């Protein structure tokens, strides 16, 4: 269905293929995340020091029981990778929900009410952009201790800017359209106009922003976990897997290649899907 609706023209073929690739990657990761307990061949937390750093299937001397090998504590790498889908997807989606709630509220209010409110909203966006995200997130987690909940709230509070910018500008466009004027004349309340007339008409733009934010949140979680101030061990976050394997990377590079490729492919998939959706909704102006 997505393919059929993608914009016509010479780009059509490539665009639809890339959208499908993106959807496939995101779908597969979502399935891995939901059904992780059923899919893992071994317990992702079980250590076996007798089987440390077994090599993956494409190298000589591999153990067919452990397709992607084992880590420095003898834990099955494939199982940890599948479990890691849960963490990435969970963080990506929940952070985006938090930041969407903040950003859309602020942006729609600024765009709809205008005047002083809008000045305040613009100021909030400018201030937010001047704050270094990674540093502040690290400081908060470093001060309050690492947990998934704290990580989600912190990143959610830091990543609402793009939602606010897009919600504000699209609301401004919709506000001046005839059907909104008609609703005013019909005596609709402000709340009704916002929820029934404005929001449905800016929703498609917000969905595109949401995909970009999911990709960004996944990357940031991995970065923070890599720096040791994200998801607490022994949870198999892909960023944490790379951090833990870093000491062995010069002798066995695959220990950082495998989780890194997973991370790279997932973020690429989300972005491809987002680009496809943007074309689908016919809003080809880059935010």
């Amino acid at each position, binding site marked *: 269905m997505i393919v059929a609706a993608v914009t016509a*023209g*010479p*780009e059509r073929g*490539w665009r639809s293929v890339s959208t499908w690739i993106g959807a496939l990657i995101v779908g597969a990761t979502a399935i891995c995340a939901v059904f992780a307990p059923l899919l893992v061949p071994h317990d992702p937390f079980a250590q076996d020091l007798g089987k440390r750093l077994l090599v993956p299937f494409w190298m000589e001397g591999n153990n067919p029981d452990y397709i992607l090998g084992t880590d420095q504590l003898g834990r099955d790498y494939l199982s940890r990778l599948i479990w890691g889908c849960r963490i990435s997807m969970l963080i990506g989606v929940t952070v985006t929900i938090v930041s969407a709630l903040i950003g859309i509220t602020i942006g729609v209010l600024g765009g709809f009410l205008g005047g002083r409110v809008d000045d305040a909203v613009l*100021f909030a966006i*400018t*201030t937010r*952009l*001047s*704050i*270094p*995200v*990674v*540093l*502040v997130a*690290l*400081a*908060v987690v*470093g*001060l*309050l201790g690492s947990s998934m909940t704290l990580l989600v709230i912190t990143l959610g509070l830091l990543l609402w800017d793009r939602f606010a910018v897009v919600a504000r500008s699209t609301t401004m466009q919709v506000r001046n359209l005839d059907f909104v004027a008609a609703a005013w004349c019909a005596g609709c309340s402000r709340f009704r106009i916002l929820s029934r007339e404005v929001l449905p008409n800016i929703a498609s733009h917000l969905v595109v922003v949401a995909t970009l934010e999911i*990709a960004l949140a996944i*990357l940031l979680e*991995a*970065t923070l976990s*890599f*720096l040791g*101030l994200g998801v607490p061990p022994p949870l198999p976050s892909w*960023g944490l897997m*790379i951090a833990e394997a*870093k000491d062995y*990377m*010069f002798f066995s*590079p695959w220990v*950082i*290649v495998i989780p*890194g490729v997973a*991370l*790279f*492919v997932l*973020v*690429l998939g989300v*972005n*491809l899907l987002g*680009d496809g959706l943007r074309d689908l909704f016919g809003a080809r102006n*880059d935010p």
Partner: protein
Amino acid sequence: MLQFIVRRLIVAVLVAATVMTLAFVLTRLSGDLAISIAGPNATQADVEAVRKAYGLDRPLITQFFNWVGNALSGDLGDSYFFKARVSSLIAERMPVTLTLGLSGLVIALVVSLPLGILAAVRENTAVDRAVQLVTLLGQAMPSFWLGLLLMITLGLQLGWLPISGTGSWEHYVMPGIVLAFSAIPALTRLTRAGMIQAMGSDYIRTARAKGLSRASILLKHALRNAAIPVVAIAAVQLGFMLGGSIVIEQVFALHGVGFLAWESIGKNDFPVVQAVVLVLAVIYVALTMLADLMNAVLDPRLRGP
């Protein structure tokens, strides 16, 4: 023009003041600072001594205004861990971060300007799509992972570049490439979009009609107009890059401001953490203001009422 500058300046000062407040609140989030500074084995008396020594026994509002007042006169307080002034610590480490940020920006511009122009000239061809693919790949690349991969390949296997440290310019090549990756997608897209818009404009048609050469049209007429937003965004990107260099400094053991902040977070050294947040935010605000001014000078239409 003067009114425009004054307005931007007022906003910049307000933003800096807000970030200052936020940075102060941020470091007080953990509750009692004295307990965390004194450490897990401290007695009640130790905690009291720490509280007195660092002025943490005074009301929060007094502490806040003290900090603001001192910061305005350039005094960012003393580090708990390094036994040195925070301002001198930051001044000492800033050259590394600035060198890293600037080399990242130069590499990003050297890559994205030609890529963007190429994609615009060959719009909707395989070349254009290849460039778009490159920007997508760059967007999805986790910078710390790219850093580690470069260390393994360029550093260990090929032996071309040093793996970590700050001895010579060669130490900045790999970190610079990694940092540039974060800016290349946005800069390339913007150059492409600007060039496509410029190429479709009337003055390009006139230049074509005059029979100017293709190179002259592209470089002298189109690029000059397309470059205005790119130059402005480049300044903003530099601000983002300085903020994001904390990850890369940690990966490559570059002892810059980001590394200092990372160390200080681990050691509960709050004066350093809040000062680094403030300094990076002020640099960002200054760079965005510079970008706005450049835009306004280069394109009078943007000055507004």
